[in-house]
């Protein structure tokens, strides 16, 4: 399988491990990725004018004929919304008028869905089944919204993937709640409360790992975790993995291939436990 790859701006900074692990896992699963040439920012949640946002997405999508895969939920949501708006021929015409390469339709996929599709049940490539590992699936907002392939409020695909890795999904009430990320710069307190509620629920539910599909969610739950613990006076200490990292671990990829050392809350102890468990069996 060959796909166009749209890493998104965060891949060059706060989401480096997302990018690294995505590339590694795809290589291991024989999914060929061709990075979109000269891609631009999708606008994240900060471009208010829908037409501009559509234009930014369209420029990216016009770079390739291949289906486009991204590991970032924000990019994914923006591209998907744009595809929908570009179905309106008037909008398409206006947008194409300023584009060099013209947009003529595109297929957009999230890495999560691509990976799940290429993993079989009891896949032989899963060399480290994550048996008994309690994984809290946290989707955040934009993987499933606006409504598309998955239920916008109660998706189950992450749990499904978790099960395929033989881990044990922990259902979070907050699983499609917002992480607060988009407002963490200008509205810190509000964002912190929101993010902490998710961590607290995961803790209470006994999760060993939280799995995410969005670099902003990851930032809020992982990079900010220590600061949040201090602020709220409660220890959390749950590693937060990108779904690609989790899959990578099960595929037996090494920590540096998955950027595990870049996670703020180290997942190494959990990985250790999984290896021990396997050795015992």
């Amino acid at each position: 399988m060959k796909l166009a790859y749209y890493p998104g701006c965060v891949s060059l900074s706060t989401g480096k491990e997302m990018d690294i692990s995505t590339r590694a896992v795809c290589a291991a699963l024989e999914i060929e990725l061709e990075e979109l040439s000269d891609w631009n920012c999708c606008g994240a949640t900060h471009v208010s004018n829908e037409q501009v946002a559509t234009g930014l997405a369209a420029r990216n999508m016009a770079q390739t004929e291949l289906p486009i895969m991204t590991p970032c939920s924000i990019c994914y949501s923006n591209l998907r919304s744009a595809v929908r708006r570009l179905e309106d021929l008037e909008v398409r015409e206006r947008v194409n008028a300023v584009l060099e390469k013209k947009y003529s339709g595109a297929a957009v996929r999230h890495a999560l869905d691509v990976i799940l599709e290429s993993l079989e049940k009891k896949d032989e490539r899963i060399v480290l089944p994550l048996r008994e590992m309690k994984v809290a699936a946290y989707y955040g907002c934009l993987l499933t919204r606006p409504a598309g392939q998955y239920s916008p409020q109660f998706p189950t695909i992450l749990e499904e993937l978790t099960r395929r890795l033989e881990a044990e999904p922990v259902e979070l009430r907050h699983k499609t709640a917002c992480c607060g990320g988009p407002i963490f710069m200008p509205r810190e307190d509000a964002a912190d409360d929101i993010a902490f509620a998710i961590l607290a629920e995961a803790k209470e539910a006994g999760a060993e790992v939280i799995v995410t599909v969005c670099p902003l969610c990851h930032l809020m739950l992982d990079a900010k975790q220590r600061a949040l613990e201090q602020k709220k006076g409660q220890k959390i200490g749950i590693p937060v993995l990108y779904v690609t990292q989790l899959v990578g671990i099960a595929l037996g990829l090494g920590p540096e291939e998955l950027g595990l050392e870049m996670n703020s809350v180290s997942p190494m102890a959990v990985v250790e436990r999984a290896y021990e468990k396997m050795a015992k069996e």
Partner: protein
Amino acid sequence: MPTGVYVCHCGLNIAGVLNVEDLKSFAEKLPGVAVARDLQFSCSDIGQEQIQKDIAEHKLDRVVVAACSPRLHEPTFRRAISKAGLNPYMLEMANIREQCSWVHMDQPAMATEKAKDLIRMAVAKAELLQPLEPESIPVSKEVLVVGGGVAGIAAALDLADAGLHVFLVERRPTIGGYMALLTDVFPTNDCSICVLGPKMSEVYNHPNITLYTYSEVLGVEGSVGNFTVSGVRRARYVDEKLCKGCINECASACPVEVSSEYDFGIGKRKAIYVPYPQAVPLAACIDPKACIGCSRCAEACPADAVRLEQEAQDFKINVGAIIVATGWQPFDAARKEEYGFGRYRDVITTLQMERMLNASGPTKGEVVRPSTGEIAGSIAFLQCVGSRDATVGNCYCSRICCMASLKNAQLVKEKYPDTDITIYYMDIRACGEGYEEFYIRAQKLGINFVRSRVSSIQEEEGRISLIYEDTQNGEIRRAKHDLAVLSVGLEPDSNAEVLGNLLGLSRRPDRFFEIAHPKMRPVEAHIDGVFIAGCASGPKEIPISIAQGSAAAAKALKLLHRGFLELEPTSAYVDPDKCIQCKLCVDICPKKAISVKSPAYVDEAACKGCGSCAAACPVDAIDMRFFSDQQILAQVKAATEVKREFPLIVAFLCNWCSYGAADLAGTSRIQYPTNARNIRVMCSARVDPSFVLEALRQGADGVLIAGCRIGECHYKDGNYQALQRVNVLKGVLEKVGLDPGRVKIVWCAASEGEIYAQDLREFIAELKAMGPIGTELKRRDGGQQPDLAQPGNGPEEGEKP
């Protein structure tokens, strides 16, 4: 073919404007006219006698009356000529009052010239009239009622009492519908089954009713008066006659237990079961999906009624009318994921609440939390679940659920006065006699009302937590309850889909069956002889469902009681040699009257004569008995024979709305210019593109087509078809170099005389700007007649919509 022409003075109504003398002498000289007279009042006895005398003396075989609108006196003159021995259809009227003298009062000369054209057109058409015999067909006096809910029961009993035989087909093992499952019913809170039960038994015992339960209709053929209906009676695996309905013996022997659909998941039943104790017929039946074939029930039955080898039986019946009373089904609450139905046990639907409150229901009347079995101390009702909600595709209000929740809240409060009850609502809709009082009663009982729409439900510490904004004070809240009851809306019963397709019923955007007119014909379908009652045509409460059942019964009775039906001889017919079996007409016919059995065949009983098929047929294989192609073309020719004014407009007006509007303009004395020569057709869809092209070829400057307002066509969607054809025509005009604006289509209701006049004025102005027909060609290539070729050479086949 001696024709008699009578020009009416109508006192001064006509003669005060038009020169009737002149018209009379004009008529005399027209080809085929044997006698022409002007009469003071042609509709009076004296006038009619004169016509009858002339028929005898001059051996007239057709008559033209130039007077008022045919919508007024056509029946009068038909009667008059038939008394003199002529076929009533050998009459043609020229409308020189409503559409001439009354609307051109200050242009008497021009109006007289227009009247001449109208008379010439009428005579030309009269020339081609054929005697027609209204056919009378014998009809079956039996009626099929599909659906044994309260609406179907009401219809069946009324018809049976009136002496017609009824077949009542119900797909479940018992009749009664949803009403039989409800607890007490609003607005009086009397016990539902206590009032319905006796009616159900009456159906079972009525000598005029044949009841087929556990049965389905699988085929319908024929048309009004004579439908042949086939179907199947599924096997109950129990002999209905032998079974005593005791159920104890067989069911206690049965080892299989499944969830009962009659309790909506909160009660259980065995594989052999009676739906509920008051079921009719009171006979057990075996669920083949659950049964493991152990035959313990057969051994246990003291009456020896179990028949494991029983097979389904086909049935075939003939009926004159069909009443569709297939009802509704509850919205699937699990689709509103944020409410957690199916995830949280203490989130239930109103139907489950109804069953709990029902003394013979699964909890014997106790209202408990399914998770613990304890009495619920605090209950929330959530309104509009699956109704008024674009996210699930149901924008409509289900109309009964506010009242149902008010009722259930009252019943709970009366039974357990300490219960804390809150109704979360956007609007309380209590519109019916005594309904607002019912709402007030609930308020006085201490039931809480919070104006809000709950955004989501979560389970917290074993209780149900609702998240909502109280929009009256703007507070966002979490409220904990023991039990949340989702007021699910009503959707059309999906089991009625097959039947709808068989009958060719149309659906509204809300997916319920559409009635023929949203105000005037509340229980009639678009298809003749088919009626719709109860929730099949939209959510409604019991009293209205019953009223509709009875109304449908009255309509069916009116249709069939004489034993025969008289058919207007205005139907379409097919020239079998020309038909190429393209089936275009089959899809286009709004009455589903055409079938293609090499070649196409028109069921004249079903045909209402709109003529859309005739206009659509690519090879002109279909024609109308009345308003035939030749007759209309003759009118077009006559209208354009002498061109005395510019612009000259040939206008086609549909019989129901736009012709009515033009008449109304007359009765209201709205004045407008004389340029139009109107041709009456049954429906705007009758206008064959070749008529339009012929008019332009003959020198008309423009052609106007007027139909009912969009959505108000008397045949369903003829005006849409006309619109499509006009759009194609415009393309054709453009191709040959004519201004596409020369053909125009407008909509007016019969009440819109001024709009008709205004549309005409505008069209005249537009045509004036274009110049006489052909101006644009001259401008282009130095003058050539438009190449519209011969009549009939319309747009190419492929272009016909």
